[in-house]
């Protein structure tokens, strides 16, 4: 009951008691209200927190639901793609098989099981009106110039040789041979001995004055010419026409005559006339339609069909025999220089020709030597599919082929690894014994031309056979083919990485202390560096690679010691022996890595290496190191050679012959190759003249460019003046026409680098008269200076002489007075100044070199920083891309946060509106005298 004012009629005591009770009840109710309010706030906070978390979970659930749906859709899409890929893979297989069937029939080639010997071709191209004309020439090895018939003179001298040989005539046999060689040449001399040997059929005698004409032999039936772009054949058919990728030549005759003597003037021979070449199958015209991709390469291939009575093996054998007796054939030892270089001269010369002929002669006189399969002749015969006897008479046929390489292969295989071998994995060790990085057979010299014989295959389509050691490389072969093939064949999701590429050309054995440091191969194949000068592991030059010629660290000294020392005792050897060369360190590592069963073989191999010639040893070792680090081509060759050997074993005597050639940079030139020719009496003079001419033309180009800029500026100025007030339109127009003419003239002159006017030409720098008169004058002047005459005096003398020659004697005194100069001290001062300037120039150049080195040093860190920046940018881009799908989530989150805030505000408003606990003050009139 709310208290009211005291009623005087009421008992004060009773009133006060009631008031106390009321106040007590009020306090109790107020406390209860406070408790309820606190409980409400707590419950409200719990409910809000839980609601927020529920909202958050709902958001995440929504996201997961979407992701689950998208993931399922993604899986379905990938399954569809996989099904389509499976189907298209089958279609590729079908079309490939059909294409190969058709191509094999068109090439008229033998069975695919018969290895194909491809001889090289020489190709020439010419663009005429969007038609690419391709001319095909056989290389030297395909040209047979041998005439088996003998002249009377040859017959007489050959009989004389045999008479001396039989003792019927008294003469020195060697001298008789030399007479044959001098008179008819080494190879022909060998033929004379062969053709007139006792027991041989009587040699035919040449009837006419001229020898049998040269002929191209063992040519394919016809050639297929394919233009390539991006590694793929180009469709050269016009739009909407039947596709045309291959251009076939006409049938090719075998043999194909080359003699100019038989040429009919009315019917020019094929090597002179393009139409005749096309008719002979040695040329083809390929119209290239507009819009066709640029031809980056051109491949030409042909196969000689099986012919009854003239098997390919016999034809190839006859061709080599013809070369043996015409231009000469020999098997070159590994490492034989075949070209002239700054350091080495080609091994080919009269001595080698005579040696080759002598070997053939000796085979006639004494019988051909027996050639083993592992000797050079046996190896080459196996590769070519020829009988060993056909190569036995050739010089070099009995040379051991694989001894040194086999020993080095064993040691390096055990003692070193490399980036490439690491990539190939441990299973590649099975294929290591197949490696012959220099090739599986010696090179063949035919005349002046060396030919390497290299087994090869299509790595991308390699199918291993049971029992082949090279089968472990199947995946690597496929990957290598993909990496080097056209991008169209590559899955962008799994791009192949090129084997052996990249900067890490290294050999190492991580488990061996002596080779712990990485050895990075530098640009020079004989330089291997650790990249860290502190390790001191750099290898530079032959001495570091295989040791010096003699001394404690030489291979001849160190390797026998290593071979005779137990593996466990190697650490006790002097450091010079163990680490004197990279080969020694590899040998130590090899002995440590060899199994007990291999130790003896390793020791024997070290013995073989120890007695090898140092250059050969270095060549073999660095070839193997290259094959360990980056040369995957050596592994491809090894695999192909293993397969070839198996095929030869299975089908001995089966030979197929063809020819191939390719050209790059076939696209028509848009600028002339040169601006003319320089005739000079020697190569050195021609080189000098060419350099000067080039510099001179550069000056002419600058002059034309200056003229062009000037004319262009003038045209611009006149065009600006054309509409200006106060100008004479007619005069301006005339000036403008003239300026434009000059502009066109300058542009044309720049395009053609046409000569300037005579005065300007003479004033050009490097406009040097290189005639013999000038050269003689210069030589005279140089000789005078060398003789001690001052240059000024020599020039003055020349000037006075020219004055006298011109009949101007009367001016001589005046010129002498005018040009009087001091010699001696004054000249020396001038010379001293010149020397000072030269010294300054040298110092400046040194400073420049320092700066350039500094720039080079900074390029590495700069490149690394740029790489880091690019990588960071790429990561940022990836992060942005990854963030993109969630961008809206943040917005949704913000929206939800706003909503939560709004709800909280609403709750706060509700709380604010909610009636507050009433705590009103009451004023009551208390009865008097109430304390």
């Amino acid at each position, binding site marked *: 009951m*709310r208290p009211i004012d005291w009623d005087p009629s009421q008992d004060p005591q009773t009133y006060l008691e009631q008031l106390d009770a009321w106040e007590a*009840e009020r306090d109790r*109710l*107020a406390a*209860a*209200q406070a408790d*309820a309010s606190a409980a*409400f706030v707590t*419950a*409200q906070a*719990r*409910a809000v927190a*839980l*609601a927020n*978390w*529920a909202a*958050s*979970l709902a958001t*995440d*659930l929504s*996201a*997961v639901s979407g*992701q*689950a749906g998208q*993931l*399922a859709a*993604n899986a379905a899409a*990938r399954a569809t*793609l996989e099904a*389509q*890929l499976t*189907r*298209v893979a*089958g*279609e*590729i297989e*079908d*079309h490939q098989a*059909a*294409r190969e*069937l*058709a191509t094999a*029939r*068109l090439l008229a080639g033998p069975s695919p099981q018969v290895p194909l010997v491809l001889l090289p071709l020489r190709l020439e191209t010419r663009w005429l009106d969007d038609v690419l004309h391709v001319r095909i020439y056989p290389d030297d090895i395909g040209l047979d110039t041998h005439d088996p018939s003998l002249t009377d003179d040859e017959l007489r001298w050959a009989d004389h040789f045999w008479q001396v040989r039989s003792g019927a005539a008294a003469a020195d046999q060697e001298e008789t041979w030399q007479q044959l060689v001098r008179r008819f040449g080494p190879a022909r001399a060998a033929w004379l001995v062969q053709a007139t040997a006792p027991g041989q059929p009587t040699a035919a005698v040449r009837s006419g004055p001229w020898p049998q004409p040269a002929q191209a032999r063992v040519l394919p039936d016809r050639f297929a010419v394919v233009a390539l772009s991006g590694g793929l*054949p180009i*469709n050269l058919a016009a739009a909407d026409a*039947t*596709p*045309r*990728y291959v251009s*076939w030549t006409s049938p090719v005759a075998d043999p194909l005559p080359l003699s100019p003597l038989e040429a009919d003037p009315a019917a020019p021979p094929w090597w002179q006339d393009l139409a005749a070449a096309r008719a002979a199958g040695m040329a083809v015209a390929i119209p290239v339609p507009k819009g066709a991709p640029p031809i980056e390469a051109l491949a030409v291939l042909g196969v000689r069909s099986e012919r009854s009575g003239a098997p390919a093996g016999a034809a190839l054998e006859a061709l080599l025999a013809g070369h043996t007796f015409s231009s000469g054939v020999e098997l070159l030892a590994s490492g034989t220089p075949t070209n002239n270089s700054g350091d080495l001269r080609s091994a080919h010369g009269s001595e080698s020709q005579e040696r080759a002929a002598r070997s053939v002669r000796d085979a006639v006189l004494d019988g051909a030597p027996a050639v083993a399969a592992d000797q050079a002749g046996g190896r080459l015969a196996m590769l070519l599919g020829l009988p060993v006897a056909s190569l036995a008479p050739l010089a070099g046929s009995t040379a051991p082929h694989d001894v040194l390489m086999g020993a080095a292969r064993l040691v390096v295989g055990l003692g070193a690894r490399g980036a490439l071998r690491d990539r190939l994995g441990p299973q590649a060790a099975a294929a290591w014994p197949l490696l012959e990085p220099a090739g599986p057979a010696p090179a063949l010299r035919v005349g002046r031309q060396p030919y390497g014989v290299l087994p090869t295959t299509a790595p991308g389509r390699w199918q291993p056979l049971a029992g082949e050691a090279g089968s472990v490389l199947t995946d690597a072969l496929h990957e290598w083919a993909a990496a080097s093939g056209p991008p*169209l*064949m590559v*899955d*962008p999701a799994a791009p192949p990485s090129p084997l052996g590429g990249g900067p890490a050309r290294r050999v190492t054995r991580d488990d061996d202390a002596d080779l712990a440091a990485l050895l990075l191969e530098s640009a020079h194949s004989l330089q291997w560096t650790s990249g860290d000068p502190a390790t001191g592991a750099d290898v530079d030059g032959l001495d570091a690679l295989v040791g010096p010629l003699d001394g404690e660290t030489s291979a001849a000294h160190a390797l026998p010691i290593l071979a005779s020392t137990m593996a466990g005792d190697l650490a006790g050897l002097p450091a010079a022996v163990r680490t004197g060369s990279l080969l020694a360190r590899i040998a130590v590592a090899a002995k440590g890595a060899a199994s007990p069963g291999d130790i003896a073989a390793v020791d024997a191999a070290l013995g073989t290496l120890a007695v090898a010639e140092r250059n050969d040893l270095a060549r073999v070792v660095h070839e193997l190191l290259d094959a360990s680090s980056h040369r995957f081509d050596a592994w491809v060759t090894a695999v192909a050679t293993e397969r070839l050997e198996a095929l030869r074993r299975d089908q001995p005597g089966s030979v197929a012959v063809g020819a191939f050639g390719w050209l790059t940079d076939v696209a028509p030139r848009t600028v002339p190759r040169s601006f003319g020719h320089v005739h000079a009496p020697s190569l050195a003079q021609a080189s000098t003249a060419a350099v000067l001419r080039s510099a001179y033309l550069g000056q002419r180009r600058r002059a034309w460019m200056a003229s062009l800029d000037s004319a262009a500026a003038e045209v611009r100025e006149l065009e600006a003046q054309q509409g200006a007030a106060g100008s004479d339109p007619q005069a301006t127009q005339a000036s403008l026409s003239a300026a434009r003419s000059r502009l066109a003239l300058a542009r044309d002159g720049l395009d053609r680098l046409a000569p300037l006017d005579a005065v300007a030409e003479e004033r050009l720098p490097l406009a040097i008269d290189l005639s013999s008169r000038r050269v003689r004058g210069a030589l005279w002047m140089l000789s005078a200076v060398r003789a001690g005459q001052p240059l000024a005096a020599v020039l003055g003398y020349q000037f006075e002489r020219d004055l006298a020659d011109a009949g101007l004697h009367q001016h001589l005194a005046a010129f002498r007075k005018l040009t009087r100069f001091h010699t001696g001290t004054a000249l020396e001062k001038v010379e001293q100044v010149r020397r000072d300037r030269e010294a300054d120039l040298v110092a400046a150049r040194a400073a420049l070199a320092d700066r350039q080195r500094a720039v080079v040093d900074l390029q590495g860190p700069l490149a690394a920083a740029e790489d880091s920046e690019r990588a960071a940018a790429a990561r940022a881009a990836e992060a942005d891309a*990854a963030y993109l*799908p969630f961008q809206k989530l943040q917005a949704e989150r913000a929206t939800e946060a706003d909503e939560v805030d709004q709800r909280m505000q609403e709750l706060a408003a509700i709380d604010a509106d909610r*009636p507050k*606990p*009433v705590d009103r003050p009451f004023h009551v009139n208390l009865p008097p005298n109430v304390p």
Partner: protein
Amino acid sequence: MYEHVRAGLTDDASVAQQAVQQATAARDGVRDELNRQGAGLPPLQAALDAANATLDARNRDVAAAQAVVSARASEQQQAQDAVEEAEDAYDRHGGDEPPAVEPGPAGQAQLRQWQRERAQLRHDIDAAKAALAATRPPLAQAQQTLAAAAAVAAVAASAASQARDQLNAATSAINATRQRLADAEAAIVAAQHAVDAIAARMADLDRRAAVLVAAPLDRTTLEPAADLELADLQACWQRRHDLFAGRANAIAARGTLLAAHDTTVDDLAALRSQLAGWSDTGRWPALAGVVSALASVIAANAAQRGHLPLDRADDLAGTRDLLAAQLTALQSIVSQATAERDQAQRALDQARDALVQQQEARP
């Protein structure tokens, strides 16, 4: 030869043949439906004709009734005209105002004459009015007859309209079905064309294979055939490369998707931490289950992270279902908390009311 291409084409042919069969079945179904619809059309037409005949009869009745009404109305009009003419005559006679006459007999006579005439005119008016009143019942009766006939005619018109609507609806349905039939026929033709195209490709493969193995060798046909194979081969390579690219994109998209999922799981991990660290978690035992479930989701996701996108085996559908269940549980807890909050609210209100009542109540 071309085994794989043929196998693919055979699959395509099977699908296309199936499409033909499906289209044919669909066409037959539509045709049956059309026949049924066509059979239902004559009764509707007969009903419409009957309704129209009835309507015509009723319209004729209406017209006859209308004619009677018109006649009665005309008669009434004539009676009305007669009344008006009589009243006009009465007015022309002077109405009830006697003419001014000279005193005297003449005047009296004249006045009497006037009175007799006025009486006659009054009599004429009364007679005309009586005649007019006599015309009203027939007119009303005729109008009633007309209204009845019109009502009957309206019923007939409605019936006719309904019959017409039914007929129109049936006709429209038939037209629509005919269009569907035409579409189905076109689908059959298209599917058959696909089948024919596949058969043509099969025949082309046979022809190509024959050219490839024809003996003796004819270079004029074999060289283009070989080039055609290479063209197809290059097209296949290009198609494979495109498929490769598509697969790469799909794999990349999968990676992006899983990365997004990882981010979502990171959010869930934060949520789990908040729930696990909340002091009131023990108040609702079900909350521990939610925390545990979230932990399992996070652990499953952590096990998949670090793998390549293709190697990951995230069970997003399972995660979705699990999270949905946890959301339900959490919402239930929210409901409980809300109920507690409401209960506290009521308790607070009661306490406040009690206080107010205690303070404001009067004896």
